[in-house]
């Protein structure tokens, strides 16, 4: 019999980083399955290649820099899947390889690895791909789901593109928006699948409701007030583009969002205001990625300003500890 002596506490919850990441993967599963159903085999190829590239990059970088290999925590797999979900179905396989490599090697590992990156790696990769290969990441790169038509993929403007161009008459109906019979990136088209993922994450207490609900609500209020007081248009804003994918799976990234509840509220409102601003008045039809990335870099500042009120300490006005 051996007696171990360590400091308290002597028990821990069963929750681990790996279990959290596994839950995120499970929550992404409905949207991933839908992507395969709607866009066909290339979607499956892109997701598989992207996950392999992300995990492989993490493994290689950690081996080359003589640090412990932590691919078992599944965080690289989550990043890889999210990178694939953020490209159009027409993307070539090498695009997601470049994206996942950039996300893991540059954005994550160069800044210290898990917990230290200052931007969401998958979103930073998306922004990089959009800047380097705009024709493969936007506009005519988007194809309509082939599930219904049965024909080969054809270019299809996204609902947000139509809104931007004022082609309101061509907008899809609510059923298509909810199910995902619209053009867009792999993981973003089906609102129902994404909401299923949200429900799972909330039930498993992986994330709190604050960021996704407040983010989406802010976009709803702003697009309704400034988008012509039109319920239909507001609905298109909420159900298409990357809003749900971003609000549920990327704005909630622990590392790049504030630690405290109050900080998370500020973060979510900020994401919402920026997204609505870009979509309504900006040059791009879509603004989710840039909004979250901007709030990512504001996060250290929010954490500096917003601190919980320590029990038993008198509140001091206007003085930030």
């Amino acid at each position, binding site marked *: 019999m051996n*007696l171990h002596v360590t400091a308290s506490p002597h028990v821990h919850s*069963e929750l681990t980083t790996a279990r959290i990441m596994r839950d995120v993967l499970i929550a992404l599963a409905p949207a991933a399955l839908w992507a395969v159903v709607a866009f066909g085999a290339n979607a499956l190829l892109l997701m598989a290649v992207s996950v392999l590239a992300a995990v492989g990059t993490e493994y290689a970088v950690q081996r080359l820099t003589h640090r412990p290999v932590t691919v078992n925590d599944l965080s690289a797999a989550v990043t890889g899947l999210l990178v694939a979900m953020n490209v159009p179905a027409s993307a070539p396989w090498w695009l997601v390889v470049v994206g996942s490599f950039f996300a893991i090697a540059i954005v994550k590992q160069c800044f210290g690895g*898990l917990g230290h990156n200052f931007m969401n790696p998958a979103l930073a990769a998306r922004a990089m791909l959009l800047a380097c290969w705009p024709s493969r990441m936007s506009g005519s790169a988007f194809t309509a789901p082939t599930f219904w038509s049965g024909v080969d993929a054809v270019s299809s403007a996204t609902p947000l593109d139509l809104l931007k161009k004022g082609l309101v008459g061509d907008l899809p109906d609510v059923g298509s928006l909810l199910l995902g019979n619209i053009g867009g990136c792999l993981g973003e088209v089906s609102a129902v699948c994404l909401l299923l993922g949200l429900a799972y994450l909330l039930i498993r207490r992986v994330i709190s409701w604050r960021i996704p609900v407040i983010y989406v609500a802010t976009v709803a209020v702003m697009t309704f007030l400034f988008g012509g007081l039109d319920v239909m248009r507001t609905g298109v804003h909420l159900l298409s583009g990357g809003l749900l994918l971003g609000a549920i799976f990327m704005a909630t990234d622990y590392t790049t969002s504030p630690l405290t509840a109050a900080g998370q509220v500020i973060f979510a409102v900020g994401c919402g205001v920026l997204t609505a601003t870009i979509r309504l008045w900006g040059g791009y039809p879509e603004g989710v990625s840039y909004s979250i990335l901007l709030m990512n870099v504001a996060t250290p500042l929010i954490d500096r300003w917003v601190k919980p009120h320590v*029990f*038993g300490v008198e509140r001091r006005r206007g003085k930030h500890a």
Partner: protein
Amino acid sequence: MPDLTFKGGIHPLQSIHHGKDLTSGRVTRTLPPPAQVILPMASFIGAPAKPIVKRGDTVKMGQLVAEAGGFVSAPIHAPVSGKVAAVENRPHSNGKTSLSVVIDNDFADTPWEEIRPYPPVEDMEPQEILAAIQKAGIVGMGGATFPTHVKLSPPPGTKIDTVILNGAECEPYLTADHRLMLEEPGLVVQGLKAVMRALSVSQGVIGVEVNKRDAIESLRSVIGGEKSIRVASLKVKYPQGGEKQLIYAITRRVVPSGGLPAAVGVAVVNVATAAAIARMLQTGMPVTQRIVTVTGPAVRTPGNLWVRLGTPFSACIEACGGLTGGELKVISGGPMMGLAEATLEVPVMAGTSGILVVPQEKEIASSGRCIRCGRCVEGCPMRLLPTTIEQAARRGDYETCRRLHVMDCLECGSCAYQCPAHVPLLQGLRLGKAAVGKLIREEKAKEGK
């Protein structure tokens, strides 16, 4: 009325009912006194006691063997009669050694001649009760072992109006207080009355977590129609028994940072301490025994035992069927705040509420890498930022630790329990506390010059 509680906190080991099912239904057995008792002079917080006996002396049960080492200290009495075998350093449950009086038991339990029962509490003056508590060397039996007479001597200028008995027993696995309230509710209530009288207070509350429904009922039946005393049912949440959390839950009063409960007019005493006071007043005999929960997955037949003070852990564990083998951790107290022991020869003291034996936990992937999930912040009952403080402490930035109120940390371990990356958060916080404490002492010394 909904169950009372505080903000923050956690639910440790909820899936196995906080580990309490192992022993909560076990009636307390009396462990036969051991052949030898070991009485450490540092059996409580404060200055260690000073031995007044030497090797070869004959002592009787209840006889004074060491006198208090100051005001914040307590005397120590023999829990058995017999002969002093040694006055020497022995292993202490804090991991160090402590000067200890070791007595060979003659198994006669011959009481000391000077033991006299006290008159009924109602006939005693407050000062007399306080003096009796001080003379008997009663210390907090909830685990912190602060001398009780000091707790009941509020600083000048403060007025106590409420006495709270702490029967929360929020530590997983422990059921010693639960069994005490169930089996000896009369002693608990009598002890509360004595403390209320010692402080001239007319309001007494016993706070009990609702997972001890039977204990709440047994206390209520003893209290009957008494107006000045009530039982408050508390939500099951850790650390509900933390002094500041308990006071807030029951009175909504907030003990200021760095302040004592007296600052908000409250005195908190553990239920076991109250029962010990009551028994001491009835018999005149100082505390000679306490209930110890001997439990955990690695104990063969877990149970609750009345144990003579000074009994080695090994005897308690043997009485519970011994241990399963393997890589184990023997903990004095509960799993959240208890101390891991390197030897089973350490003795049971007044604050030893449990002996817990658990298998050693395995390391997990990503150990120690914070993912900023915020669970430590959510769980902190003091609403600190554990991960931020821990990182500051590790890089030696103690000014930041201080600004983030590290000194308010009560070391409950909620943060570390919750952490999915198993960051040793509490160790970091302790590091910060030690360094900031040193800074503060140095500043005070400078000001004093």
